[in-house]
């Protein structure tokens, strides 16, 4: 599988990152098999979080067995020192390892959160302390929030080394600043910050729970995913062709094999094809009157 430099971290990540949340829905034996399958495809970057149910615990055994082969990202939603310090130790403990390669501030959404995180006694203090103590190697951020807020975070966190954000044809087709993740991508490229793409496989939101109860959804993702081999391949190729360093696999274990397959076969995507995908979904919720042309 193709690898790319993850910004200036020194890490060469496979173009696919395994979203280990998928392990949460498997028994331990199935989780072990899935990690073996993922490693068989050459994937060397895994991502996990303490909020993904049992995923950390289920990843543990195989992670320890193959520790050298896996660059592990983990995250915290804590915004203050105490909580973040505790979460780092807890994740290390649950995973059963000494060092997390990449530790990310997870799900940044509001300016005030950024204030708290970067203030004295904020989560960053704990993360930096952990870094100095060798518990983590690199510092990252994840957000599906306002791109301007992410840019702001890049400005305010000097030692930020990676950013994880959404990128897919729907997002790429929108010009409003609230969807301008391309600006984030550009900034990261110019500053040597690693980029991880999420929501690459999102087709849309789930129908309202009145129409479709949460328990009746066919996939564990928090959005409705594309789910045919062709569509998955196309979405993977699109995301990887945008220039992201790596694309995170979707949360549902049923989709992982197809995504591994797509990533193994990745050979780029020409621009006329990328535009075609953007154009195809641009009309989904277009305010413009029906039109004949593209």
């Amino acid at each position: 599988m193709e690898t790319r430099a993850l910004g200036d971290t020194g890490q060469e990540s496979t173009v696919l990152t395994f979203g280990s949340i998928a392990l949460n829905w498997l028994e331990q034996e199935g989780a072990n098999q899935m990690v073996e399958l993922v490693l068989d495809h050459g994937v060397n970057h895994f991502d996990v979080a303490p909020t993904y149910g049992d995923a950390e615990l289920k990843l543990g055994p195989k992670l320890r067995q193959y520790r050298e082969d896996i660059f592990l990202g983990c995250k915290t939603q804590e915004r203050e020192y105490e909580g973040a310090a505790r979460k780092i130790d807890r994740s290390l403990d649950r995973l059963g390892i000494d060092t997390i390669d990449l530790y990310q501030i997870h799900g940044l959404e509001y300016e005030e959160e950024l204030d708290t995180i970067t203030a004295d006694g904020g989560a960053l203090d704990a993360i930096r302390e952990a870094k100095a103590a060798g518990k983590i190697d690199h510092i990252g951020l994840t957000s599906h929030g306002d791109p301007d807020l992410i840019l702001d975070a890049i400005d305010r966190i000097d030692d930020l080394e990676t950013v994880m954000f959404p990128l897919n044809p729907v997002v790429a087709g929108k010009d409003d600043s609230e969807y301008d993740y391309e600006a984030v991508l550009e900034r990261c490229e110019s500053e040597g910050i690693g980029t991880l793409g999420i929501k690459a496989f999102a087709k849309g939101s789930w129908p309202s729970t009145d129409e479709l109860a949460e328990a009746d959804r066919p996939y564990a993702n928090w959005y409705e995913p594309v789910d045919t081999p062709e569509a998955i391949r196309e979405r993977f190729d699109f995301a990887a062709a945008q220039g992201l360093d790596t694309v995170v696999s979707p949360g549902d274990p049923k989709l992982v094999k197809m995504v591994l397959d797509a990533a193994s076969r990745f050979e780029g995507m020409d621009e006329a094809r990328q535009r075609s995908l953007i154009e195809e979904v641009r009309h989904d919720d277009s305010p413009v009157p029906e039109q004949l042309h593209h």
Partner: protein
Amino acid sequence: MAADVPETVTAALADRQVEGQVCLEAGAGVGNTTAGLLAAGAKRVYAVTNDADHAATVRERVGDGSADRLVVVEADLRATPLATDSVDLVTAHGLCNVLPPADLDAVAAELTRVAKSDGRLVVDDYAVPPADAAVTRLFALENAAARVVDGRPALAFYPPAVLAAVFADHGWAIERKATLLDPVPWTEAHLNAHADVVREYAATLPDSLGEPLAAMAEDLVAAIGSERAGTMYSLAFRLGDV
């Protein structure tokens, strides 16, 4: 700018000088290219269409915030009120496929008249869709309805070499060719818009003729659903010595 500029438009304009230029958007439609030209810093955009609804849509959708740089002109492209030698950049995005051959040449002549002697031109259009594409059945029905009502087809897909030759006849030298879409995604919305054209023609006909036409259009849209077929290309020209 609120209007989302399609990637097709952005790609076609990316290697053109737009900033500070006086532009003519030939066949403004719903204003996609107008929005793209304004976003790229055009000094002024004359958005020309012969359709009053389109003119209103462009004003409403794109006029906001750039009203001082936008002039929507309701006119026939074969004879516009624009001055000779007055335009730096002419764009025709998805225009030629709605021009039957006889009109195409007259429009090319008029665009050449208003362009400055060192003017530039961008023509974006669809290649002839592959014969086995289901959408060709809908386009054929649309043309049949148009012929019955107007005595001329509604759609004409020109290969890039043909459009290059038509404009070359008026002194335009080709600078580059690019593929904008491959494949072209004909979504349900696009197919419905084409079916609407059939319905409009059908509405002007006696029921015995119009109703079956409209029903056929509806059936075709339902049968096709959506389809990816064909390509959309972009040609860039400059006026003057070849």
